[in-house]
């Protein structure tokens, strides 16, 4: 299989009032194209930090992260932003939907920012699959938690990114809705050949992953 994403000796240190915290300590890992990865570990083990660095939302203190052989950690903010909206999708635990826009605008936002228009067939397919077809005109504040998360998923897949990152996407949802949501995310990724990297506490989700990455004290074990 092709390696799409590769982390090489990534470290991340935070400064706090009591000194320094090493969230990641020399993490190296190769992600293959089209697979579903689950990143698990205890709270504070560094799994979310790893996800943020892999997705370009944060920068490593040292080390590199390559997509198709290109290290994007040295990209400028602008280049990184463009790279992110073209190649990566992200599902946040807190959804991070834009309150001022309706569902349709929210899910097409990465495309809009990139100056592209959504493929209408694909849009209908995604929203239909995620059960959002009748909620496109609504605003985030008018949706339930599960609906907001599905909206976030739709946003992450619509631009057909190569990699989708999800940070505890079911953390705020009940078990049933969580399973459904995860199923949708997984099906979507599989169907469009996207690599899915999910940070989760849920071992049931992890069991369904192609690969499970276990992090402990900032290291992959």
């Amino acid at each position, binding site marked *: 299989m092709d390696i799409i994403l590769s982390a090489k000796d990534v470290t991340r240190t935070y400064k706090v009032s009591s000194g320094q915290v090493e969230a990641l300590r020399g993490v190296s890992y190769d992600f293959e194209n089209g697979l579903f990865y689950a990143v698990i570990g205890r709270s504070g083990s560094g799994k*979310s*930090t790893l996800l*943020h660095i892999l997705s370009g*939302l*944060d920068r490593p203190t040292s080390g590199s992260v390559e997509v198709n052989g290109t290290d994007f950690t040295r990209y400028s*903010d*602008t280049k990184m*932003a*463009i*790279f*992110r*909206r*073209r190649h990566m999708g*992200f599902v*946040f*635990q*807190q959804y*991070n*939907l*834009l*309150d*001022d*826009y309706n569902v349709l*605008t929210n899910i097409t*936002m*990465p495309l*809009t*920012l*990139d*100056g592209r228009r959504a493929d209408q067939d694909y849009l209908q397919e995604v929203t239909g699959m995620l059960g959002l077809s009748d909620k496109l005109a609504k*605003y985030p*504040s008018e949706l339930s938690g599960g609906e907001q998360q599905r909206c976030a998923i739709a*946003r992450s897949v619509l631009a057909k990114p190569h990699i989708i990152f999800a*940070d505890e996407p079911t953390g705020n949802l009940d078990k049933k809705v969580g399973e459904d949501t995860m199923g949708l995310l997984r099906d979507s990724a599989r169907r469009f050949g996207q690599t899915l990297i999910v940070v989760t506490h849920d071992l049931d989700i992890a069991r369904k992953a192609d690969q499970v990455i276990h992090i402990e004290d900032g290291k992959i074990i």
Partner: protein
Amino acid sequence: MEMNGELFKLSVRALKRRWRQAVLLFAVLSFSFGFAVMTIMINGSMEATNRAYAEAKYGRYDILIPYGVPEDREWLESREWLLKLGTTVSYGRLALDKDGRNGPSIGTVDQGFIELGHLELESGRWPEYPGEIAMEESKLDMLKLDKTLGGTVEFTIYVPTNHRGLYVPVQRSFKLVGIIREYADGWNYLSGGPRAASRTPASGAIITEQDAQSVYAEAGESVGQITYEENGETVTATLSPLLYQYHIIRDKDMSRQARDELQGYMKKAGRLGPTFNDDSNIQSIIGRSAEATSYYSTLILIVTALGVICIYLLRVRSEAASLARFRSLGLTKRQLLLMVFYETVIIALPAFVVGVGLAAGGTALALELTVYAGSVPVRVTFPWKKLMIAALLWLVTVVAVRLAAVFVSLRTPLTGRIGAPGRRAWLIRRLNRALIWTLTVAVCYTALLTFSHSRIYLYDLFYTKEAATNATVSPKGDEGTVPANTVDRLRLVEGVKNVWGIRYFVTDVMGKALEERDEYTRQTAPVYVIDDADLEYLIPFDDLELICDSFSREEFIAGDSVLAVSDSNFTLSFGNDLDFDIINSRELLFPVGDGVITARVGYGGKFGRAVYNTQGRDIYDLPYYDINDGEFSGDHLWGILCSESFFERFLSSMPEGQALDGVWTAGERHDYNKAVMTFYPGATYLGAAEEINWIVDEAGLRSNIGNLSSAESYRRDFNQVEIQFLAGGLCVMFIIFIVIFSAMALEAERERRSAGIMEAIGLSKSRRYLKRLRSTLKSFLSAAAVSMVMIIIKEDFYRPYLEWLEEDFRYNGRLRTLSERILDELLSCAYGNWYQYGGTFWRFAIPLGICFAVILAASVFAGGRVTRGNLTDRLRDEQ
């Protein structure tokens, strides 16, 4: 390009979604910008109106050469900057005052001078043929001449010689062909430069040049017979050179060249320099007015900036979070800035347009309602350059503040629940509260400043607006008095608000008494006697009694008290501490005793009257006017205000023949043999003027309705500055109130969740309200205290207390009375600079009360927003 369009659409959608906030921001921006522009516009408009007024009232020439020679004309006509030239030549005096000076003159004017628009005919025509004359009505009155057009007038012309006070009398008779509208005040106006110019006599009688030359020739024949003593030798008099005056309108674009050439020319000729209108008192009024508007324009811009900062700062957290979310989706920095720019422009541009509209409408309305400019329409100007500068500054401020949100968003981590980190959020919250507190101080300070400086009330404003109907009603000539029933009839005219009666016993006696003291050789003394019935008008309230601690109205009315008003500065001395003034009073045989009050009041200075401007009325209106008119003579005047019964006693104690000889009124000399009664009716509408005229004519009296005195024009100009202060202050207050309202409302939105949590764990709504009100009260009281201290320091209100302190040490060696005085002051607020600016307890209590009421309302309103909706919604609130 297409991308930019998409970003623009996104900005529009976001604003639509947040339409309440957008409207609020739009309101703040449009009002603030509108008010800033309005202040600038009022400044420009006032300036233009004042200039137009000055032109209309005082003539359109802007340079005067007061002591010219015939050769000047040729030189002036060859100047490239000369647009118009008018010439007057004075040949002699119509009458002489006791010093043999300063009488009105007789002379010629050329067509150019008439075309300047300064000199107008009331009736008849200009003299065209030898033997004809046009005169001012007051000059005819003064000389007791028949005013019938076509009739013959005969009088003596006093042609000046080279010896001061020595004139050659020439008897002449003329056919009266025209009555000139009175215009002598115009000459005063031009006296801004060398003092000598103000002594330049106005020609109250115009004759043909042929007649004038004949008078001069006859005087020249007689002058050889007149001799005078100089250094022990007998010298034969010669005629003074003719007095040419050149009135010039120059090309404004060549002002500097004109000034330089004129000054060089006059210096070379060894003569007095020209007088420029630029130096006149109107300029100082314009200057003060500009100062007022600049002050408030700057203040408004600062307040606007603070307001915008405050509002955006409140939104900065949520806005930064929103922008950070955009960034997480791949929005580049350029796109981010573009979005912010679009959002700003979408609100700011319409706000700019609406602001300009508001300013234009507001200025026109404010000026129309409040400014009286005589026959000149109020000019509303549109100062484009200043407007653009203000707009630029304003936009820069708005954009700079918005960039702060971008700055914060760029530093917001894109991980987890995106939003400002706790520490920064705390800082923003503290900063915001500090800003609201600062704005509260600003609004209290502005309110105090505005109200303490604006001694203007609506009554006063409208009274001033109708000042054209003010009239002086006095007997014709020096015979008789105003019939008593005339006053009652005047009072019955619809629209007449008041009729103030003054009996003039203006005498030389004080002057003579003072002449014995070398330093007062030129002082004259008007004495005003107030009809007991008019006391209510003149002393309508009790303020005087507050000032003068031993003053008793009952004694005053009974005639046992005297209020003497002198010149010099406007420091009040009162009580029985009678030093400087009372010495003179004794010389005047005043039966001085207990209860005699003296006070010293400034003359000529507009601020001097403020001491007496109480409750919308100037109790010293009349002395003030006459003191100003009297200033025309260049002498100091002494006025004494007393009751009529007292004055009767005073007269009876005067030595025979001293009391009623030589009277000065309205800047002119009248040889009244007995007291005359002059009334000042003030009417509320112009139609009343005609009726007043009718009554006056029927009673055989003289009135000068419509002839604004110089004091009235002072008052008008003064009011204009006041209006600017008032308008500027109210604008600033209004903006701050909007900002505080908005800031509190937005802060309340953010508090909803935390307030919900507090409510969920047991804090009742009523307690939350109480807590909020308590904190508002604390914050307001501290802000009010700070603003009070600031105003006290700014206005030097503490100075009288320091003086008391010094007095106590000097005279008593202790501070025993100081505490009593301070207590008294606190209770009455009736002394010191605060009082001079019209300060009373209510003058600071009312503005602060208004501020408190508005801030309290804002707090209650915000409190309502915090607890609005059900608890579960509030707990879910993202803010």
